[in-house]
């Protein structure tokens, strides 16, 4: 596993100065393929089956967004799309939120209303890039660790590692909008640990491409949260923050229950080696 870790964790840090100079941008997409490169470097390449029906998992994270919004609504009333979009625009150009002209906020809200038209493209693009990660995290590392820790334990450990792996982009402001704000790393490790059992569940049900579709769905739909809540404070009212993490809890509990059920009924490959093809269950 050493080569896997060296490549998956080392390459993003090699990219760090480049991303610092020119912005994260498309370099994040390059980074998303480093776990897959790690598996190749380790010499344990496997071939996941590509089935169209597994792409349905792309839409499952809508349940998580709804759960996060519901949890947040217990504490804070929703403020509607204007406040969140105004806040994000203001953070992008580093001005006070009240300085963003109304016209621009309205234009972005209109663009957001048109977003469903882009769903087929978003599904393909997000799934494809998330595949670079899921091939390593769920398809390779989770089954490896599951041999020793069981699926749930392995999911939690892989989740924490997966969150830590994001450190180079988190420290550049990704997800939490603050550069070099160190709490972003432990916060995102918690987020990833909370969501990881659900991704493992998606992997066990739908294979690596299904987990990739699920992961792509998280990336695609997370921003919908900001249509109801501006991320202030970012550690709390943020799909990647405490409320987003809390939104995973009911889904994670279900995933753990279903994984255990699958184990008991023998629907999981018990020796947990990466299967050569990923059939459902």
């Amino acid at each position: 596993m050493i080569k896997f870790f060296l490549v998956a964790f080392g390459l993003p840090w090699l990219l760090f100065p480049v991303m610092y100079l020119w912005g994260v941008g498309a370099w994040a997409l390059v980074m998303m393929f480093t776990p897959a490169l790690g598996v190749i470097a380790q010499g344990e390449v496997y071939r996941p089956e590509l089935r169209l029906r597994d792409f349905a998992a792309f839409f499952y994270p809508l349940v998580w967004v709804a759960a996060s919004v519901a949890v947040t609504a217990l504490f804070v009333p929703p403020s509607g799309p204007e406040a969140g979009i105004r806040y994000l625009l203001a953070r992008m150009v580093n001005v006070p939120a009240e300085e963003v002209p109304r016209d621009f906020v309205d234009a972005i809200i209109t663009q957001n209303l048109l977003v469903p038209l882009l769903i087929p493209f978003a599904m393909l693009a997000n799934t494809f890039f998330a595949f670079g990660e899921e091939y390593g995290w769920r398809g390779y590392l989770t089954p490896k660790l599951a041999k020793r820790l069981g699926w749930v334990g392995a999911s939690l450990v892989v989740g924490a590692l997966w969150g830590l792996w994001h450190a180079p982009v988190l420290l550049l402001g990704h997800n939490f909008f603050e550069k070099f704000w160190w709490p972003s790393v432990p916060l995102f490790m918690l987020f990833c640990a909370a969501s990881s059992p659900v991704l493992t569940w998606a992997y066990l049900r739908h294979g690596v491409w299904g987990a990739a579709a699920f992961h792509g769905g998280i990336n695609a739909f997370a921003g919908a949260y900001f249509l109801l809540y501006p991320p202030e404070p970012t550690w709390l009212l943020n799909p990647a923050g405490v409320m987003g993490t809390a939104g995973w809890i009911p889904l994670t509990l279900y995933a753990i229950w279903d994984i255990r059920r699958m184990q008991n009924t023998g629907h999981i490959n018990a020796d947990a080696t990466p299967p050569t093809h990923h059939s459902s269950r």
Partner: protein
Amino acid sequence: MYEYWLSRWEIITIDTRFYLPYLLAPLALIPIVVYVVSRIYGIRKLPRRAFPWFIVAFVVVLLAMYGPDLTAPERMGFAVGGGRLVVDVGWWGVPSGKVYNLSDCGLEWINASTTRIWRSGRGGPYVVIGKITLMPQVVEGYGMVTRDAEWILVARCPDATYILGGPGLSPRVVHD
């Protein structure tokens, strides 16, 4: 008299210089993706029919990058001084061929360091063209402003408000 003119070709070259570092990421991404997918799925040779698709993808990327620039007029800009204001842009809603007597327009000068430009129209690395809003002054109008402009001229003319800025433009040049 102050004049500032910009050609379509200048816009394309400025964009290219600015975006070049950002192109490195997609250029690095393509071989990595091809390598990973080919290793996982054991693709040793690309089928011949894949090449036209690569060319199509390349053309689409080029069009996405330069397509809007190609719709720019060959030459655009403005002139102010000698009692006249000429606005000749013809892109992103900014009119072309407009000539005003300065005495008909209310002029206001805003130091660029005291304002932030918001635009609906063409942004990019060097020049903003289209509907412009200056904040926190809350001034709206059509025009073009370059990034190196020190002063921004707000001209409230009878049929429109223009927001204009270029290298070296200052209140003094209007009277020269």
